[in-house]
């Protein structure tokens, strides 16, 4: 006689992946289960101990440790002991009950048979990192063309956050007109107990009342359009737009289950279109002063939050944010260089403004600060427009670079006004160290390559990821060539850079479990940047520099490195997936913070993530760790650390 223990059935039914098992399988599983209890402080499974059971935590908390160090804290619903029970090898981790803990014990044999017979169940525990990550990335991305994302939004998600202005059919025309004026709306929904019965627009007031001389004391029932065309909350914005265009109307009531819940107007949709990055860039280009640009820039975080919520990929978001940052920088440089010219005269030499770091890599995020530098030609411009090989032609008493100092200082302030905070490390053109002539830059770059002190490595990381943004791009090209040609021949530099790149390790324990910060303000959080996306950026940089690759975008670098001489196709593709995934999680997190009015941060509480995101994150960090190991071996970082 077998009896279903409802308590346990209910528990498993509430937790992935058990909840996805067919009812018959679950019925068959339940009688095979046992329960054990572990007192706080007792060992569930010791490191190196053989284990043939999977434990599902029903109550309590278990620390997963490696060498006595906490790698992850597992709580209710989490399955532990999975890898040792699956592979039937001694446990690579220790499991320690840190609270009184009740566990369901799934016999190893039963568990393995479930893995073998239920695809989604196995997928949940699948250790094939790349497939899982790639799938997670694909799931997060939206399917549509990014250029149509805005109008793909559903009417219900346009988020006006405002109840429609409604009135009863018996309201007088005069009062209705007053309400519309007070509420600043151009249409009024006529309802009967929340049910939509008609619509009155300002056009009705003009044509049916004013022009036809109707008594304003009459009820609006006499002028309303009864049973108007409506859309549902699920209608796509572009469909609503088409409806209105075809019917030559400007308002569409939004109805949900017969109730009027909102209204869309052509104005809303035009504004929606304007939220598109292309329009942002156009808007920026139309502005004639810093304040105007700053006003447009202020719309960026909200727009990006919308994009993230629509499931745009991290790469896409990074490019959109970079395109906007580029547009803003370029427009500011145009305006400010005109100002400086008005104040100080023509620029004495040709110059090129460089974007550095994330903007250069097309990876601008919501929390990106400003990083830039200036290259000034070695040669002064002759009054006739030609150049003089003698730099001294600037004149003995004139600082040839004063003009650029003025420009850079104004840029720093203007970018700050546009929401890009100054770089705390002052890696900006406003810092005279990073406002150099071609020759000075050349010496600086060679100095970093030849003498890889920790400061040199730090700077090389920033300045070797540079992209000419404004001015004479040709001034920068020789510098880029210099790095691409010289770096592969500086093994000492590469070794140090590789050692530097492996300093920040992913927040991961020995067997692929998330490690939270244990001290300080960030206790309980993991840093998605330091050992995450930034670690991949550094890995890609070392490999790219050693291979003489000039691309600066991490994704492009990794794409180019997918050769046998580079990282090999599987490793490169895993790293691209990991980078994409971590960045997506980070952007989503930051978009939420922005929506909540908080400053975007890279720290996230793993408990705030879904179980599957946590798992994919572990996989992504695992990919980083193995790539760091490979990097350390290839560049023999042992010799310098």
């Amino acid at each position, binding site marked *: 006689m077998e009896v279903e223990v409802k308590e346990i059935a209910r528990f498993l039914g509430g937790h992935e992946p058990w909840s996805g098992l067919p009812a018959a399988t679950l019925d068959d599983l339940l009688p095979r289960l046992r329960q054990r209890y572990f*007192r706080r402080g007792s060992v569930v499974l010791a490191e190196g101990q053989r284990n043939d059971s999977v434990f599902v935590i029903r109550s309590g908390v278990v620390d997963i440790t490696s060498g006595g160090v906490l790698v992850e804290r597992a709580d209710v619903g989490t399955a532990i002991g999975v890898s040792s029970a699956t592979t039937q090898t001694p446990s690579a981790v220790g499991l320690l009950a840190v609270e009184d803990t009740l566990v369901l014990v799934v016999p190893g044999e039963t568990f393995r048979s479930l893995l073998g017979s239920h695809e989604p169940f196995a997928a949940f525990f699948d250790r094939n990192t790349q497939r899982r990550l790639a799938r997670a990335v694909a799931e997060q991305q939206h399917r549509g063309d990014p250029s149509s994302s805005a109008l793909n939004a559903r009417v219900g998600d346009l988020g006006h956050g405002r109840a429609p202005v409604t009135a009863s059919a018996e309201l007088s025309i005069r009062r209705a007109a007053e309400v519309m004026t007070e509420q600043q709306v151009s249409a009024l929904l006529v309802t009967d107990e929340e049910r939509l019965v008609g619509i009155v627009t300002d056009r009705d007031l003009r044509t049916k009342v004013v022009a036809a001389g109707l008594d304003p004391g009459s009820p609006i029932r006499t002028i309303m359009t009864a049973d108007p065309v409506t859309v549902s909350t699920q209608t796509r914005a572009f469909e609503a737009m088409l409806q209105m265009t075809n019917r030559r109307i400007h308002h569409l009531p939004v109805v949900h289950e017969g109730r009027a819940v909102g209204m869309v107007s052509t104005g809303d949709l035009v504004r929606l279109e304007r939220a598109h990055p292309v329009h942002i860039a156009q808007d920026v280009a139309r502005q004639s002063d810093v304040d105007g640009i700053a006003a447009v820039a202020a719309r960026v975080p909200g727009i990006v939050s919308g994009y993230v919520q629509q499931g745009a990929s991290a790469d896409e978001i990074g490019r959109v944010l970079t395109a906007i940052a580029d547009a803003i920088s370029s427009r500011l440089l145009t305006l400010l260089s005109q100002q400086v010219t008005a104040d100080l005269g023509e620029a004495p030499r040709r110059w090129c403004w460089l974007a550095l770091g994330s903007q250069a890599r097309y990876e601008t995020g919501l929390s990106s600060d400003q990083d830039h530098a200036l290259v000034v030609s070695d040669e002064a411009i002759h009054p006739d427009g030609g150049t003089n090989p003698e730099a001294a032609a600037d004149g003995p008493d004139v600082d040839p670079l004063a003009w650029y100092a003025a420009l850079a200082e104004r840029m720093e302030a203007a970018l700050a006004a546009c929401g890009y905070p100054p770089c705390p490390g002052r890696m900006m053109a406003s810092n005279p160290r990073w406002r150099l002539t071609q020759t000075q830059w050349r010496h600086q770059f060679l100095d970093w390559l030849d003498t890889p002190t920790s400061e040199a490595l730090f700077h090389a990381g920033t300045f070797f990821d540079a992209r000419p943004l404004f001015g004479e791009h040709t001034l920068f090209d020789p510098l880029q060539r210099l790095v691409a040609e010289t770096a592969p021949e500086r093994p000492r530099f590469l070794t140090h850079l590789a050692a530097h790149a492996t300093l920040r390790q992913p927040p991961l324990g020995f067997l692929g479990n998330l490690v939270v910060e244990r001290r300080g303000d960030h206790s309980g959080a993991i840093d998605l940047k330091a050992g995450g996306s930034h670690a991949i950026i550094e890995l890609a940089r070392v490999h790219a520099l050693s291979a003489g690759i000039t691309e600066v975008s991490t994704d492009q670098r990794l794409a180019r490195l997918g050769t046998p001489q580079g990282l090999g196709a599987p490793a490169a593709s895993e790293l691209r997936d990991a980078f994409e995934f971590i960045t997506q999680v980070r952007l989503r997190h930051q978009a939420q913070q922005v929506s909540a009015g908080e400053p975007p941060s890279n720290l996230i509480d793993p408990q705030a993530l879904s179980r599957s995101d946590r798992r994919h994150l572990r996989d992504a960090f695992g990919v980083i760790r193995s790539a760091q190991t490979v990097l350390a071996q290839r560049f023999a970082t042992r010799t310098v650390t």
Partner: protein
Amino acid sequence: MTPLSARHWPRPFDTPDRLRRRQLTGLGPRGSPALRRYLSTPLPGESTRISDLHLLAIDMETTGLNPDRDRWLSVGFVPIDPGPGGHEIVLGGAGEALVRPELVGEDRGVGDSAVVHGLTDDTVASGLPLPDALDRVLDALAGRVLVAHFTQIEVGQLTRAARVIHGIRLPLVTLDTLELQFAILGGDQARIPPGALRLWAAREQYGLPETPPHDALSDALACAELFLAQLQDEHLPRGRGRLGDLRQ
């Protein structure tokens, strides 16, 4: 008519297992197969190691506390066996049954207790006849220690059913999680907060899942889980680790 053996008072050195052997001898050809099996299986004694005990957590729902007056409505049970790493609850051995009202001498309905159990007369009427319900419990209980939270109800109903149906005194070895909790909390009535000994309050002290009590099997499981927790509590007076040490 009551057979002679059932009229015996326990002897000073009597143990449940001696009682069991005596009852088996006295049973003769009577009794159900389940009862015969129960009486043929040795019961643990006071000197059995705690770590070797096989137990069965039981919860019964009844119309009240007096076995002679109040009816047995339902039962749920789940075994607790020694495993390689300590005692384990064996979910595959779980059982439950509703008990059909007895026809003779019992005219009392579920009454007010329906509010507590959610069991109505109609539901109960679909249950097992009392002898079958007893057999089901005895089948599961053979060779095991009966564990319950406040064992009097279960012990009272089982011994009464065995007496009425088979005319025997049912030997039972029991452990009461309520008494264990009392001992764990210091064994001093005056210092134990009111309500702390209740099943769900005791469970809370061990961080066990908070699920509302609803049926006999869930409550039996709840009791079994509490027992596992108590076994690992350093405050449990366990003497030299024998069954007898758990009952002072």
